[in-house]
């Protein structure tokens, strides 16, 4: 075969994969605009399911709770993660390698295990389920992502800049605020967006930790799916997926995925 044929074949393959990745999501989204309750075709355009959403207090509450939790998680995980990244960047110490390895379990262990372990532990210590438990769990899942992203950005930072600032008389806080943070800010923003996405899309851990009546949006959707599908679920799903993809597109601009900006 000629090089052109290979190239064409390759592009067709890539196109097919993209179709596979996006078609179901687009179909799902399209069905949220279909008037039929039973997903019947022909397609008749309607926004009634979105209108219904606006009246569904339970879903609205869950959505608000999900966003609120994600914001809390973002704030906490970004702060703690960035602090740890800076500490590991600035200093050499024994056990640093171990600390880096310890970031692996929250990412690598299946969430089913982490989630059920948290459930057991939080019950054991009397915290039980509920929003605080969910936040604690999400933050732990998000911290490694923040550290990885911020550390990647710090790798491009010249440590003598900090030394220069100190030599000029700046205390640790001034050095961090005036020199380090301005440089790693894009990394922190990307880390924060990752943290938001991790929390906002998190289902498994929330599923085990959230309290009845105080569940997050993905948990609510799961329970709803198991009770039968309605286009209302399509509508809220469409909103969620649009939101999280937008967040990630912004994150990509700040992280290395989108090229080095």
């Amino acid at each position, binding site marked *: 075969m000629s090089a052109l044929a290979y190239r064409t074949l390759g592009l067709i393959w890539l196109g097919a994969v993209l179709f596979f990745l996006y078609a179901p999501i687009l179909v799902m989204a399209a069905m949220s605009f279909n008037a039929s309750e039973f997903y019947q075709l022909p397609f008749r355009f309607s926004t009634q399911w979105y209108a219904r959403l606006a009246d569904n207090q339970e879903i609205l509450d869950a959505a608000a709770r999900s966003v609120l939790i994600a914001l809390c998680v973002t704030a906490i995980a970004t702060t703690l993660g960035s602090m*740890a990244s800076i500490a590991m960047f600035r200093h050499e110490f024994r056990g640093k390698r171990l600390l880096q390895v310890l970031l692996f379990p929250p990412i690598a262990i299946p969430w089913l295990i982490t989630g059920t372990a948290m459930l057991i532990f939080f019950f054991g210590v009397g915290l039980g389920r509920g929003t605080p438990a969910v936040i604690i769990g999400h933050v732990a899942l998000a911290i490694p992502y923040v550290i990885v992203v911020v550390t990647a950005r710090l790798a491009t930072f010249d440590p003598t800049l900090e030394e220069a600032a100190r030599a000029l008389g700046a205390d640790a806080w001034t050095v961090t605020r005036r020199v380090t943070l301005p440089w790693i800010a894009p990394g922190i923003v990307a880390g924060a967006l990752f943290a938001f996405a991790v929390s906002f899309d998190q289902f498994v851990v929330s599923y085990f930790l959230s309290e009845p009546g105080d569940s997050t949006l993905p948990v609510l959707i799961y329970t709803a799916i198991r009770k039968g599908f309605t286009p209302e679920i399509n509508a809220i799903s469409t909103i969620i997926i649009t939101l999280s993809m937008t967040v990630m597109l912004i994150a990509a601009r700040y992280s290395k995925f989108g090229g080095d900006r």
Partner: protein
Amino acid sequence: MAIHPAGQRRLGVLGLLSPAYLWLTVAIFLPLSAMLYFSVLSDVPFGDTDWHYSLENYRAFWENPVYATLLWKSVKLGLMVTLVSVLVGFPCAYVLAKVIRGRARETLFLLVILPFWSNSLVRIFSWAIVLRGNGVLERSLNAILPFEVDVNLMFSTAAVVIGLVHSYLPYVILTSYLGLQAIDDSLIDAARSMGAGKLTILARVILPLALPGVLAGAVLIFVPVVGSFMEPRILGGRVGTYYGTVIEDQFVAVFNWPLGAALSFVLLAVVLGILALASPILRKAQT
């Protein structure tokens, strides 16, 4: 007497590091320890239940073939999903890394990775909508094809595999892409200058060099798939009982947490074993 500045620095490091790691300890490491503890109890130690230490939960795993069967079923599912993902994803990564250039590559790469960062539950739900009998897939196929087909993939192992491949495909594309991108084009040119054909180059140059990346992606897919429960439950129907769903049941329905903990720990052992085996590869892929 003021603390020596070197000591002060040490305190500073501690102050910066400890919040994050304390948090991880409380939310990850202590819970995992608590789970280990639970797995050797005979009953949940809440209220006035009568409990004692015992290995009966682990014994249940060995004596009742149900759990081993399901674990094997989950492992098979993991292998299947991983294999399909690699076969589909590697060529895709190759096209991205070596065929497409410039801005188009950046955009297409982002497009491939993007779904990975959207809600997994919603994506599984999308497949449920598509795959249902009388659903979109069947209708569109019947609209195109001259003959009637009965595509009812919903509630089958195929549906579970499709949904999981959709969920985890971006992993293998991402890691393969990074691995392929690191291969210097001059190596390929060098091989060509020595008269190697396309297949030879692929088999003798590209694949060996890209292998760590591909394997890293495979591990990243295999591990979560073995522990999946939501996807089989929604897409699997009657055949959707897996190791993960049984663990979920122990916690959500049956309230046999000690058994659930023991089952989780067996799963964790399998996962850690795989990660340990793969860690040299993963480390290689990182660099």
